[in-house]
């Protein structure tokens, strides 16, 4: 869907990107992960043509973007950035309606669309009349995401959209966005320097160091990363632990208790909890297995340390 072939971008004597190639298949959320100033945002701006490559080609839908109408290309790509970027003189409705209005949708369609999107990002519909200055950080980012999705573009470009939020809010929005993405299956390029964010959201992670791509794979692929010091350092020694928050209990549990004997004390966990929560409970209670419930006290299986290991190494989710 999006393909960059040997793209180089130079600013005067600084090379922001060197021979950069990357492909994002349709329906995949690819996280571009790297430290600040490594050229992540440059990649996004090259794709929506805010800047032009010094050399190399970029294709969207197998079409070279040099040959495409810039305005139409941009209107087909939702764009969300850090600290919302909402227009302060437009209320929530008008902010979401920007691209649909540019595309000359009729009023009734825009109304429907705005209502749908507000529901999708879990904002009350009576927020429509509010100005960005009246919104909290989290609410503003929700509107930002809704605005990016407004004209139902096949592609989303997201430049650290949750970067300015506090940890709790950030995690909430990540989970909600993950849900939305599973439902809508957009082709997403998501830029961040936050490893946990990448783990939570990514189908694929592309790790960058300044100016170049160093590795590409699914989040689980990076557990076994031994060869490249740079990647190990950047992902952190606790990468495996962070990865646990990507999986939910339901995905790794088994029907039988693999520990064999029934434990003397039984602790329970719901199937929707993350695996990291499950491990945390096991450690704090001093047990090797937990009963998994369906949320209504009904036991549907067990989770053990064995299950967790198996789940992470064999079963990349889906």
């Amino acid at each position, binding site marked *: 869907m999006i393909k960059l072939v040997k793209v180089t971008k130079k600013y005067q004597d600084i090379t922001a990107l060197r021979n950069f190639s990357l492909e994002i298949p349709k329906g995949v959320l690819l996280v571009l992960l790297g430290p600040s100033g490594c050229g992540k945002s440059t990649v996004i701006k090259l794709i929506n043509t805010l800047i032009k490559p010094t050399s190399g080609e970029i294709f969207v839908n197998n079409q070279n973007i040099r040959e495409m109408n810039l305005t139409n290309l*941009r*209107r087909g790509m939702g764009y969300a*950035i850090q600290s919302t970027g909402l*227009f*302060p*003189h437009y209320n929530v409705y008008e902010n979401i309606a920007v691209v649909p209005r540019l595309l000359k949708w009729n009023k009734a369609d825009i109304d429907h669309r705005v209502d749908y999107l507000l529901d999708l990002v879990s904002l009350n519909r009576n927020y429509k009349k509010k100005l960005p*200055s009246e919104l909290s950080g989290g609410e503003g980012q929700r509107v930002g995401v809704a605005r990016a999705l407004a004209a139902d573009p096949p592609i989303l470009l997201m430049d650290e959209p949750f970067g300015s939020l506090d940890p709790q809010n950030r995690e909430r929005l990540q989970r909600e966005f993950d849900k939305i993405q599973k439902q809508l299956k957009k082709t997403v390029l998501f830029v961040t320097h936050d490893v946990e964010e990448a783990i939570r959201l990514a189908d694929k992670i592309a790790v960058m160091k300044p100016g170049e791509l160093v590795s590409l794979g699914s989040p689980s692929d990076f557990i076994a990363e031994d060869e490249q010091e740079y990647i190990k350092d950047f992902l952190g020694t606790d990468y495996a632990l962070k990865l646990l928050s990507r999986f939910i209990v339901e995905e790794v549990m088994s029907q039988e208790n693999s520990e064999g004997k029934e434990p003397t004390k039984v602790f329970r966990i719901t199937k929707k909890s993350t695996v990291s929560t499950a491990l945390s409970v096991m450690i704090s209670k001093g047990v090797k297995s937990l009963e998994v419930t369906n949320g209504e006290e009904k036991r549907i299986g067990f989770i053990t340390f064995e299950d967790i290991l198996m789940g992470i190494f064999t079963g990349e989710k889906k």
Partner: protein
Amino acid sequence: MEKPGNKVAVLGALIIALSLLFFSFAQYRPNRVLSGTNVYARGLFGNGFLLLLVLSILTLVFAIANNKQHQLMIGFFSFFMAGSALYLLGTALEKDVFNQIPNGRVSLGGGFYLFFLGIYMVITGSFKGYEKAILQRRLFYLAIFLVIFIFLLSGHLNQLSIMKEFFNRSSTFFRQISRHFSLSFFSVIIAILAGIPIGVLIHKSRRRNNPILFLVNLGQTIPTLSLLGLIMVPLTFLGERSQWLRNIGIRGVGFTPAFIILIIYALFPIIHNTMAGLRMIDQNLLEIASAMGMKANQSFWKVQLPLSLPVILGGIRIAMTQSIGNTILAGLIGGGGLGSIIFLGLAQASPDLILLGVIPLVAMAFLLDLMVSFFIFFYRKKYLGMTL
């Protein structure tokens, strides 16, 4: 705790009280030009003096306490003091003392003006800081203005010397006011129509030393009066060459040169604020606008102009106030306006005549300023969700 506005309000209340006690509120002169005797508030207002004094001291106390709950009280006190001072003044003027000699004149003294300055300061100082207070402040200004206006219309103050000057030349007076207004108002309108596009163009060209900007800055540094002299030369030249040009008003003196100079002066703040307003816009927003597929002109009309409008309006506000002051100089070259009355007053050494020109001038500047700032206030509140 130090609260904002405290000092100004206290000083204002102090000035009110002091003006009542120690400054001459009016001057009584046997005729128009002879110097006169001072009359103090105590003598002029009789028992009303005590009422005013008590009110001013209460205001002072409230101003020192600077309690939010008393804010409205201070406002109403000030309003009431202004109203009653005018009423008492009019009543006092009816008294025989002032009407013994047929040509006797009573003019307002320094104390009277100080008194109103104090009231202005009290209101300015008390209502400060948050949105509702600023709205209330402007409403109190407006209310006091209306009271003054009503007293003037009612004829209650007709015995004042300045009113007599007014009746002596009321037809010229109104003609000059409207001339003054149209000179300053329409020059600003033209400056707006020209200045905003110029500002936008300079901003877009991104050149530091833009020649247009250089010219406008140069115009600003030349004193108004000299510019007036400078522009008279080419206009006289043109007017002498062509009868047609002379017919449409291109001459060395009169309306046209004054009008041109006023436009040049009004251009400066408008161009500058347009540029500043555009420069202040968050670059991220412009990037977002184009990333969402807005074309350059859409980005300008939908994002840049609305976001810089409060700053541009600020420039218009400055231009408007300045222009009203600058228009006085039109009086010097036969352009008319309140300047003619003021310069006539200067020539005749008649303070009342000068004031007859100055007071409407101040009122006009004040009201227009109030109007534009109301507009900015509501624009910011409605579209940007902020007011300060």
